[in-house]
């Protein structure tokens, strides 16, 4: 099979996938972003599994981001493995008010990144679809943060 055949096959497969996805969406059989999020017994696990993965949040929260978010709340901890830093950041939370502060930091960070995505979308319109997907995930993540707060802190 030569390169041309491979490319044709790939193109046909992508079209087939696209048609199937569009048909599923039209039937309403695709879960909304909120519905596709899992439930967890613990808020820390919930946030680590649903907010920290770039694939789910549309945003990359790095170790330095966690450190910077904590600094905004006058908290400080050493750079470490990302998961451990996340736990250090969350272990500070003792009350609903504490959690609100943490949520505010996450949302502020999400908004900053989404604004950057929007700027690039305007400058490079062909990339709008790509950035819109990330922005949609980010907005869904903000709603998920609200859900976590209601579920575990009210």
């Amino acid at each position, binding site marked *: 099979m030569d*390169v*041309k055949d*491979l*490319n044709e096959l*790939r193109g046909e497969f992508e079209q087939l996938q696209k048609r199937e996805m569009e048909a599923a969406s039209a039937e309403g059989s695709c879960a909304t972003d909120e519905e596709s999020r899992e439930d967890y017994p613990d808020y820390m696990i919930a946030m680590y599994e649903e907010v*920290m*993965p*770039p*694939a*789910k949040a*549309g*945003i*990359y929260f*790095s*170790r*330095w*981001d966690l450190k910077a978010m904590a600094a905004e709340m006058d908290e400080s901890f050493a*750079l470490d493995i990302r998961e451990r830093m996340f736990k250090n950041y969350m272990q500070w939370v003792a009350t609903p008010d504490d959690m609100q502060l943490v949520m505010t930091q996450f949302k502020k960070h999400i908004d900053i*990144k989404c604004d*950057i*995505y929007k700027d*690039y979308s305007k*400058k*490079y*319109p*062909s*990339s709008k679809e*790509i*950035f819109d997907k*990330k922005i949609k995930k980010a907005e869904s993540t903000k709603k998920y943060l609200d859900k976590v707060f209601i579920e575990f802190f009210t």
Partner: protein
Amino acid sequence: MQDDLKNEQLARVNIYALISRILMNEVDEKLLELILKDENILSFFPEFKKWDKRKKMSNKDLIEKELNVDFTNLFLLHLIPYESFYIREDQQMETGGDNPVQALYNDFDFRVELDEARVMSADHIGVELEFMYKLCEAEYKALEDGEETIAAEIAEIQYNFLKNHLLEWAPMYLLNVKSEAGTAFYFDAADLALEFILSDFEYLTQLKDSEYSYKTIAGDK
């Protein structure tokens, strides 16, 4: 090949070569001298150009005391330059043969020497940019040989690779590199890489919309 088209294609080849090299491994004195001596290349590094430390330190000291430290932080320690981390919901890296990017490389006979490249996996940003470099090089050669149909097929592979791979994750990573860079050099390198892949995707989208008619694209300029 028309001169405008030739220059545009050569520029794409050279910029992909430059950014893949810079984001793959530490800068050495040879590369740094090349960047500093060539005004065209240096113009891609505006903050580095006016950076005080660059003017006060020897190239050797600049590399050892500043650039290498920053490279270690941005590419080895604190940030993750591998696609699978950003695509997988479990935040894991796929270093084995199941990596979809590796499978794609195999389809096009692009061999990655992980040891030589000193990367853990084929979906490292430097390797993915090198793949684009090789594709652009092949496209340029096809155009030089008058093989526009083959060039168009290669351009389509580039378009799909940017859309389905690099642009899915590299913006997230490069934005963090920009905000966490400790040196003007890597700030500019991340900015250059991000702006370039986005503008190249604009170009490839325009080319695709013209049904890969190079004459139409060249005529638009």
